[in-house]
């Protein structure tokens, strides 16, 4: 009882040191990104995000096509992954026999453990050939009246990158939505069924709306993943710096341009422009993730979001 033991003091100092390392790292991260891109920030300011040329030789840089490619590939990914992962999550929480839940969830979550570069490899040699020979021509023949599905067919394209991203973000959206749906009180289901709802009606009108903000959070979390995904996209998107309406055309993303050019850059301005791209990417993902956390946290606190819980 006489004061704190020496062991306690050492213990606290050591732990504090470890804990301090985390904010310090973030400090370094933000500072280094800012310092590294100073040259480009001074030259272009915010106009960087609306410039459309990317010419390392003439040292003229603008990131609009990169931002466009990042947003479009991530949107394709979400358009495919959201219905699928929600379908799986709803099935597993509301309909599936109990013994099936763990194994299926486990299999899909294993997708999250596969390294990005392996997705890229599989994409190059399996996915893209199939897309190019059958899926893309089929899309052009059936949906060719839309501007997204016109023009010459390339294998490596925005759509190929979007599809591989969809597979990659699916496990994240699925597992978070599943957690959120599991957190919905059983009384919601019982009340709906008691009023004579079918099982589907109970799930769709009483359970899903209750978990809505958490599900949106899960989707945004997936968006954050899709925006920053690098290797698979770099290997499949075709790496061409232009804004095309057709999803069959190659594109470029912020992460891919860094991956391709950083180790080969020679001029200070080129490095600065690439670091500026990294800074923009970092800022976007922080915003997106903060939004997602906020929404998921609201459901965790038990606040229904779909009107009065129905």
């Amino acid at each position, binding site marked *: 009882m006489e004061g*704190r033991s020496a*062991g306690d003091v050492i*213990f606290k100092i050591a*732990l*504090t040191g*470890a*804990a301090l*390392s*985390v*904010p310090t*790292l973030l400090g*370094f*991260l933000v500072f*280094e990104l800012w310092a590294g891109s100073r040259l480009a920030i001074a030259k272009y300011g915010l106009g960087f995000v609306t410039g459309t040329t990317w010419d390392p030789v003439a040292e003229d840089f603008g990131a609009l096509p990169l931002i466009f490619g990042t947003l479009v590939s991530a949107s394709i990914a979400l358009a495919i992954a959201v*219905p*699928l*992962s929600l*379908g*799986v999550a709803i*099935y597993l929480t509301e*309909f*599936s026999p109990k013994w099936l839940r763990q194994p*299926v969830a*486990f*299999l*899909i979550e294993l*997708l999250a*453990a*596969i390294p*990005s*570069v*392996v*997705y890229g*490899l*599989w994409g*190059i*040699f*399996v996915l893209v050939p199939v897309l190019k020979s059958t899926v893309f021509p089929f899309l052009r023949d059936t949906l060719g009246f839309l501007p997204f599905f016109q023009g010459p067919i390339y294998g490596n394209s925005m759509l190929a990158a979007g599809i591989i991203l969809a597979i990659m973000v*699916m496990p994240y959206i699925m597992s978070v939505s599943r957690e959120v749906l599991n957190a919905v009180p059983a009384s919601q289901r019982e009340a709906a069924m008691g009023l004579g709802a*079918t*099982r*589907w009606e109970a799930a769709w009108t009483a359970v899903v709306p209750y978990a809505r903000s958490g599900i949106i959070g899960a989707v945004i979390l997936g968006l*954050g993943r899709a925006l*920053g*995904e*690098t*290797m698979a996209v770099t*290997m499949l998107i075709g790496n061409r710096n232009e804004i095309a309406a057709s999803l069959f055309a190659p594109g470029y993303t912020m992460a891919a341009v*860094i*991956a391709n050019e*950083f*180790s080969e850059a020679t001029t200070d301005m080129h490095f600065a422009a690439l*670091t500026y791209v*990294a800074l923009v*990417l*970092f800022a976007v*993902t*922080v915003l997106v*993730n903060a939004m997602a*956390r906020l929404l998921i946290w609201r459901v965790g606190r038990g606040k229904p979001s779909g009107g009065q819980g129905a």
Partner: protein
Amino acid sequence: MNRVVWRRWKSRIMVSLLIASVLVAVAPLILILGTLIIRGAGSINFDFFTRMPAPAGEAGGGVAHAIVGTLLMVGTAGLIGLPLGIGAGVFCSEFPRSKLATTARFVADVMNGTPSIVIGVVAWTLIVARQKHFSGFAGSAALAMIMIPMVLRTTEEMIKLVPHSLREAALALGYPRWRTSLSVMVRTCLPGIVTGSLLAIARVAGETAPLLFTALGSQFMGTNLRQPIAALPLTVFTYATGPYDDWHRIAWATALVLIMVVLCLSLIARLATRQRFHD
């Protein structure tokens, strides 16, 4: 009555759509693992683990240099990242309401969402730009930066699962705080912390993006972390995007080895936690 029949049918149709979505969602995993085994397994033999790559155009050869490089780099990253991450996690559970813990937790979430390529850029400006050469150590630093926030979160979550009464009992018996924390709290959930660490190691072992311009990769056997060094994911990338069929064959085999390592680590980790905490 007609309406009731329709509603029942609608329910049935929607449930079959849900089942279809499960099948579609599970398919990629099976396709990817299947192709890896079919295209990769044939090239895996003893030489593959012990030999250096053959010159382009020649058959045979292995990826011993990349296996050594990955072991060294991930090992170093673990030596830096695990103690810091676990320490920070223990801090957050010991002083959960302190300003530092709240900040560390928030920052860890921010960093967990940061794309790994951005971490690579930071490791480049911090280390490679200052030393003026690529190095395996810069790669390790980038991987450690990815590990620390992950391990912090899992460690804290695991310690949270330990009943508070254990802590109270230990303190009441006159244990000093540090022993209560280490030999009661941490000891009790040690399997969970090990699991978190294994998952973090599995995750960074497959990372390519942060190594592209830090470790850079190399065609030679190297054990010096101050030099550019090879790694399994980098080898997959280089060989997959190269022009030769032999290279593609090696890319498939290397990817198979990589995925076996990563999946084994995650499987062990998951099974260990499930037994401990969910049954």
